[in-house]
């Protein structure tokens, strides 16, 4: 967009605008409201369909649509002349020709653009006395969205969302003229991960949400802004609250984070927080209800017993919670064993280099990058809103996309280059890529290299799962970044897609085995600790598991994690948690892990919690309490502070603000950032002066955290059995409590499914739908076959985190190969 300032006259008023912007938008800033229905810039080019925005432009005989007319210098525009008023009231009257006048019973009543515009610009009464068109009254467009086609004004918004934003191309206009209606192929339900957005877009009551219909009326609700913590995207949301309960989730447009969209996970996920399985108060082993005092005393006792032989793993937690947990470990117990990753991750010095401000990309960089590399993650499943962001970059800015993953992704179709390396092959691929970027060759990475090499700006969206391959994967990634000189380029850098929602916040708050708050070097930080034999560098999650099993560790505190569902090697975790003397769980729901706990504490949800989280791009955001906490749930910062106190260590934290203050004091690059700075939109610490306090890679050298020996890249190791396939696993967007404990979403719960290439399926005599046993030395799980064109030969893929047949059961530390055997056709 050309930023040139120009002046025009709208209704006699001088208005300054940027050249090329649409007249409607310029008028808006000049406080002239021009009514619109079809116009929504987020949906791409204007369509000029509804004709509501017609205005008079001097020198042009016909009225023009202000939504599609770029402003020019010296333009003279009239929006309230008789000619314009005549057109506006004509259009409103036409819109009402087929629109039922049933506002009193319509779910949109009171928050309906058509209602408002009819009153503001309409003729007052319609002269239409004939029959209106008839459609079957509201029917389900999807299990979540009802469509009332009689109310539809054919504004194109919903179908444009499907085509131009989500690009699922499922929602379409069918038939022609006034017979046109919004529908799907063969009347099938519209099932797509972002489809809930159409209910926000619809300017009338045609598209409504089953989860909200008739639950409330505009005058007895209020909106409360917060942040969704159901995935690392951390989209900004607005909760519609009635009687202190969440009734609906709406997008709270933040161009720096979510572009005003929500995935269905974030939109409908809240329904699970009312589930039976919700932990509503503290309890002790055997399900016995307990008072907070008892529970905290019991937990303190267990931790004391463990002492330095305790460990903590933090997952679903705010920055403050993470900060307090690591203080309990390090300062109250003298144990360095804290982690916030499901298996293992890079060493501190590598982490420091990865997180270096010069190298970190912000979400907006995706919009402006010439080339984007999606590496080792499928954003659709791991950070859905980025999927839309990347599509937008390709569609609107012609950005080139390269995809390099184990498994085909939803973005492959729009990619200039898509490569699928063998599971566990990221390290190998990245080192090839780095070489190929430096001197072109014809290797696996050449196509991807072509896309990136000469691009002026490159954003790399990478999944931290590649760290499961070991340090080598990340040093290779840094090498690629160096080869592309990302640190020197505009709109360029690394954007992490972590497995844990608040991974960045937690590690910055000190939840790493070898790094304290602000990624400080614990080998120095811990010199203050009095406790004997405190090792400066603690154990990573994987090692904690081993140490619990061997008895080296006694007590483990699990905060917002469910190892038995979400971590690799389920059996090993089961053994570990059984062997542990004490397991202390902070959990939202009862699950297999809490069943093993001696003390269980309830967690708050993002609708109830008060705290900060850090977006993977470094943006500090505020989660605000919007709904009341069910049962006997208490703020978790308070519980942790008290637990620490009982353990004889006063954190000095007496309120959420004081917890936040303690955090910003402890993290040098959060220093001075206030709640006001964060406000409603958040703030990237890299964009503040404190950026200077980021740890420097050089000082990070030394210290024996080299225990994370970077093992050799996992090559395509030889198969034990000839027809064995290399197994890759991934976390499906819909696997877990989000669908299992959530009636409206239950239909999305994925069945275990093994995805195979066509040649392998043929070789094994399998076809889609067959029931099979997927086995790996001894262990096996049941799955249905799904043959996929773009799965590469020799590999197969399973889902993690499913209720039954969870692929984590088959996983160990490194890639495994499995055999597949048909059980039923």
């Amino acid at each position, binding site marked *: 967009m050309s930023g040139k300032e120009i002046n025009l006259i709208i209704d006699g008023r001088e208005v300054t605008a940027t050249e090329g912007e649409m007249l409607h938008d310029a008028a808006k800033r000049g406080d002239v409201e021009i009514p619109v229905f079809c116009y929504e810039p987020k949906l791409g080019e204007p369509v000029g369909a509804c004709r*509501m925005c017609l205005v008079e432009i001097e020198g042009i005989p016909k009225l023009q649509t202000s939504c599609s007319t770029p402003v020019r210098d010296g333009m003279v525009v009239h929006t309230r002349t008789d000619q314009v008023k005549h057109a506006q009231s004509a259009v409103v009257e036409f819109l009402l020709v087929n629109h039922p006048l049933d506002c009193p019973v319509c779910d949109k009543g009171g928050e309906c653009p058509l209602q408002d515009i009819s009153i503001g610009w309409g003729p007052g009464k319609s002269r239409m006395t004939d029959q209106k068109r008839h459609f079957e009254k509201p029917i389900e467009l999807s299990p979540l969205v009802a469509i009332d086609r009689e109310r539809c004004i054919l504004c194109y918004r919903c179908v444009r969302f499907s085509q131009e934003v989500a690009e699922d191309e499922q929602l379409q206009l069918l038939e022609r003229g006034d017979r046109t209606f919004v529908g799907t192929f063969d009347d099938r339900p519209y099932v797509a991960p972002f489809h809930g957005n159409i209910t926000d877009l619809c300017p009338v009551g045609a598209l409504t949400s089953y989860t909200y219909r008739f639950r409330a009326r505009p005058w007895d609700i209020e909106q409360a802004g917060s942040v969704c913590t159901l995935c690392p995207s951390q989209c900004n949301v607005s909760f519609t609250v009635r009687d202190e309960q969440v009734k609906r989730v709406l997008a709270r447009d933040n161009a720096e984070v979510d572009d005003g969209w929500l995935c269905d996970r974030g939109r409908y996920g809240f329904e699970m927080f009312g589930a039976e399985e919700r932990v509503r108060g503290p309890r002790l082993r055997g399900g016995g209800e307990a008072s907070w005092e008892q529970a905290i005393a019991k937990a303190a006792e267990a931790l004391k017993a463990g002492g330095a032989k305790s460990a903590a793993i933090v997952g679903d937690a705010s920055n403050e919670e993470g900060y307090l947990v690591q203080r309990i470990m390090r300062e109250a117990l003298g144990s360095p064993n804290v982690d916030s990753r499901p298996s293992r991750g890079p060493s501190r010095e590598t982490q420091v280099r990865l997180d270096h401000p010069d190298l970190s990309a912000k979400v907006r960089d995706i919009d402006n990058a010439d080339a984007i590399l999606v590496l080792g993650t499928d954003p659709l499943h791991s950070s859905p809103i980025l999927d839309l962001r990347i599509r937008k970059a390709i569609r609107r800015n012609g950005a080139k996309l390269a995809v390099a993953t184990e498994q085909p992704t939803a973005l492959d179709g729009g990619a200039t280059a898509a490569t699928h390396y063998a599971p566990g092959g990221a390290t190998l691929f990245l080192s090839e890529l780095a070489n190929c970027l430096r001197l072109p060759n014809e290797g696996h990475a050449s196509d991807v290299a072509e896309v990136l090499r000469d691009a002026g700006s490159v954003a790399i969206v990478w999944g931290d799962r590649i760290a499961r391959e070991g340090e080598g994967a990340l040093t290779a990634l840094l090498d690629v970044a160096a080869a592309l000189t990302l640190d020197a380029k505009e709109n360029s850098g690394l954007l992490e897609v972590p497995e844990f929602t608040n991974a960045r916040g937690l590690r910055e708050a000190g939840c790493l085995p070898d790094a304290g708050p602000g990624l400080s070097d614990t080998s120095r930080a811990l010199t203050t600790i009095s406790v004997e034999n405190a090792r400066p560098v603690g154990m990573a999650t994987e090692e904690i598991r081993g140490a619990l099993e061997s008895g080296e560790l006694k007590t483990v505190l699990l905060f917002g994690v469910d190892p038995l569902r979400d971590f690799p090697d389920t059996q090993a975790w089961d053994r570990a948690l059984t062997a542990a003397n004490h397991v202390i769980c902070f959990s939202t729901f009862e699950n297999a892990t809490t069943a093993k706990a001696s003390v269980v504490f309830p967690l708050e949800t993002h609708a109830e919690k008060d705290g900060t989280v850090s977006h993977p791009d470094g943006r500090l955001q505020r989660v605000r309490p919007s709904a009341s906490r069910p049962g006997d749930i208490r703020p978790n910062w308070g519980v942790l502070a008290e637990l620490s106190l009982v353990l004889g260590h006063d954190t000095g934290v007496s309120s959420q603000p004081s917890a936040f203050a303690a955090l910003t004091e402890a993290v040098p690059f959060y220093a001075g950032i206030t709640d006001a700075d964060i406000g409603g939109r958040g703030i990237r610490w890299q964009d503040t002066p404190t950026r200077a306090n980021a740890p420097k890679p050089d000082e990070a050298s030394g210290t024996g955290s080299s225990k994370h020996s970077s093992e050799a890249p996992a090559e395509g190791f030889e198969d034990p059995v000839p027809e064995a396939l290399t197994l890759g696993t991934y976390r499906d967007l819909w696997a877990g409590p989000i669908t299992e404990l959530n009636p409206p979403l239950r239909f999305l719960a994925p069945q275990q499914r093994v995805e195979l290439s066509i040649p392998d399926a043929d070789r094994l005599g399998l076809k889609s739908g067959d029931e099979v046993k997927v086995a790996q030395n001894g262990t096996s799980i049941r799955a249905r076959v799904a043959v996929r064109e773009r799965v590469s030969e020799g590999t197969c893929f399973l889902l993690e985190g499913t209720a039954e047949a969870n692929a984590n059961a088959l996983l160990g530390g490194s890639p495994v190969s499995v055999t597949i055997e048909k059980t039923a056709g």
Partner: protein
Amino acid sequence: MPETRMLLKNAEDPALRTLAGYKGYGGYATLEKAYRELEADEVLKELEESGLRGRGGAGFSMGKKASFLPRGGGVDKYLCCNADESEPGAFKDRELMQRNPHQLIEGIAIAALAAGIGHAFIFIRGEYDSQADILDAAVAEAYEAGYLGKDILGTHRDLELVVHRGAGAYICGEETALLDALEGKRGNPRLKPPFPAVQGLYGGPTLINNVETLSNVPHIVNHGAEWFKGFGTEQSPGTKVVSISGGVRRPGNYEVELGIPTRELIYGLAGGPAEGHEVKAFYPGGSSSPVLTAEEGLDLPYSFEAMAAAGSMLGSGSIIVADDRVSIPHMALRTARFYHHESCGKCTPCREGTNWTVKMLERVVRGEATPMDLDIVASVQENIIGHCLCVLGDSMAMPVGAMVRKFRGEFEQVMAEAGGRPDAERIAVVQGAPETLGAAT
């Protein structure tokens, strides 16, 4: 006054459809001359100077439109021949394609040369299946003979020509809807600007012309602009293939010099209404043109300027005659029904205005309306005109508006008399087949 046949010359000879037959009458000589001897700009200049006006409806200068395309190479430019001919009353393009397909192909090739275009399409309405077959065969012959394809006549110029069949939607005749349909989408009109000459098919500069317009091109380039301007009037040079139908004895296509008296066309050539009947009104330029009463129209010269001056338009040059037996309110209803059925539904005034108008006119002919409804009908037409995305809405509003205005008395009479008649919606139509069912040739 006899016809002046330029485009329909030798059209009675079935052999004209074949390459050999066409060449037998001197066909493709102009293409050879143009490709071998002329510069693109010379050809373009000739077309501009000829003053040839578009025959598809808008009557815009063909040469000028071609000159709007960016000159030279670099970008991919396209030519779309509009053969969608779906406006009630129009059937001239059908005749031209059926009887003389090579004339059109030659015209396309020369126009493409003039505008430096390498990819052309003929968008033909799906109903014209046999005409499309004829075009397919002719195009194949032309490729065979080296008049199309790569390196035409060894001049290092390429032209691909694809015959693209529509699937039944009048709106696809609107040039931007045509582009969407050709891109494989629903045929919805696009916002203008950008105009096709700047950003059209696949985003490239695109020249869109009607079949008859392009069929004129070889003749102009062959004989020169001056010669062409010798026919017709100053503002409407050349001949016009006029489709005459409805209440006349010899309906059909007649090629005449523009500017001849309209009476000559309707009475002289088409034989006028059946014995004992008179012309009551007629659409001078297809169903989109405001009807003219006999008094208003019969003695006007049949030209773009004269029809415009009379508050109507020459449009596609298709005359539909209503004789004194035809009920104007019923004709208005048929007209409105057509546009209602064909409205693409994208923009509000057209989508809702057409369906509302139909509902009101149905009540009128059923005798269930009041004079106040007639005022509403009239005002709804006013509310449509100038407010739509394309002019389809206006194409209903203008003729219907004109009928209500000019025949209000008859509307009121029908409302008064039709009451309860079961056949209320179809009374008063011309009976009897036309005369000229000439023997097969």
